[in-house]
């Protein structure tokens, strides 16, 4: 084998590896691209936020109550809230399709739409 052959093989291999990586990334991107969270207050849609954009959204109510929604690394989480029970804050970040975080005192729900399918249908709490 000549030096040029080695270069050729190496470069072809690299091109291959890069395209594989690109395909994989693109596939992953396209599923997160589509998913978003829908925030509802008392059954009415307050807003929708894509899961692939980092953001901090303070949902403020007229009576002074609030929930802070943080979207990071493709997951949505309530990091702060005025409610006394703090059940929504203790909830794990969500990203699976139809997963939701609820704040009963503020009648707020955050639901994932169009995300990855969860193998788990329900969790006890």
């Amino acid at each position: 084998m000549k030096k040029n052959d080695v270069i050729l093989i190496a470069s072809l291999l690299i091109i291959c590896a890069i395209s594989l990586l690109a395909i994989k990334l693109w596939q992953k991107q396209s599923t997160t691209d589509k998913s978003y969270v829908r925030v509802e207050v008392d059954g009415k849609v307050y807003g929708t936020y894509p899961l692939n954009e980092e953001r901090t959204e303070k949902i403020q109510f007229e009576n002074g109550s609030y929930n802070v929604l943080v979207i990071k690394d493709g997951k949505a989480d309530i990091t702060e809230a005025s409610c006394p029970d703090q059940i929504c804050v203790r909830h794990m970040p969500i990203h699976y399709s139809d997963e939701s975080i609820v704040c009963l005192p503020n009648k707020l729900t955050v639901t994932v739409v169009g995300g990855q399918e969860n193998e788990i249908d329900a969790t006890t709490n």
Partner: protein
Amino acid sequence: MKRKIISCILIIIFIAAVAYVLLSKRGVDDTDVLIQSSQRDSNKYTATVIDLFDTKTDIIGYTDSEEQFNKDADQVVSDLQYYNRIYDIYNDYDGINNVKTINDNAGDKPVTVDKELIDMIKFGKEMYYETDGRINIAMGAVLSIWHEYREAGLDNPAKAKLPTKEELQEANQHTNIEDIIIDEENCTVFLKDGKMSLDVGGIAKGYAVQKAVDKAKKHGISNILLNVGGNISCIGARADGTNFMVAIQNPDLESDELYADSFGIEDGTCVVSSGDYQRFYEVDGKRYCHIINPDTLFPSEEFAQISIVTKDSAFADAYSTALFNMTLEEGKEFISNHDGVEAMWVKPDGTKVYSDGFDNLVDTDN
């Protein structure tokens, strides 16, 4: 030159072959997942309701059409709504006599109620005897004191306080289960002791879920899973015939591990967890949960969580609370005396203990 072209072609063929193998391997996995999820997507539906039993309710169903699912979900929700109202201890509803009405008339007069409320109270009494008093629906006087202190402590954590032993013991004078007088003929319930009250928090939700499931079955509803604030119950399986998969929340909410366990459940299986990690308040940095031991009148501290798996949601709910108020040995004996009931205990340090037949009741293949 010719040799170069041939070697070039050979290299390209080789790389193409390698790439094909790599890609096709992934490709098969990917399409597999895609097909599965799209099949599921085409007929898996979820409805979330937040005005039942002071908790979140998820209904997950596999049906041919969204219309059908909405019909099924509406049926289940309206049944649960009915039970939520008649088993409510905090709110009044127009034209309905519920548990609160019975409490409001304690020591005064019998209250006419629906048969379904009488049945639940009878079940509560039954559970009291069966568990040696480890779950007592007549303990409202004690539980309401804890409720007030907890609410006040949550509203103002810096001033969170514990009730005194004296006030708890005084209230405990008014928790005699025999003072619940049921008149089945006239459909009335009377609390003989004017200072007593019913708190059905440990059983009503599970009981209602079981009743709603029974009614749903009568309506021919299948392939549905109910999760009423962690009281999980199912009819049938997923559309593809595989079992519904459920997980038990890891009681350590700080952990990266979301689940303490997960498994498939067969048609009719119920799973309920009781724990100290969701509803609690803190006094001087110490956590006090909402499950109060009838013996000590203080929150139980033996376990972080107890989960029950059995075929009836009412029993699952009652037993999970009762076992919380037992030692591990007492609980193990209780479970071994009850066929078709299995339990998983999680100790405060995270250690898990399973009852002997646990694996027989759940499907761990998936």
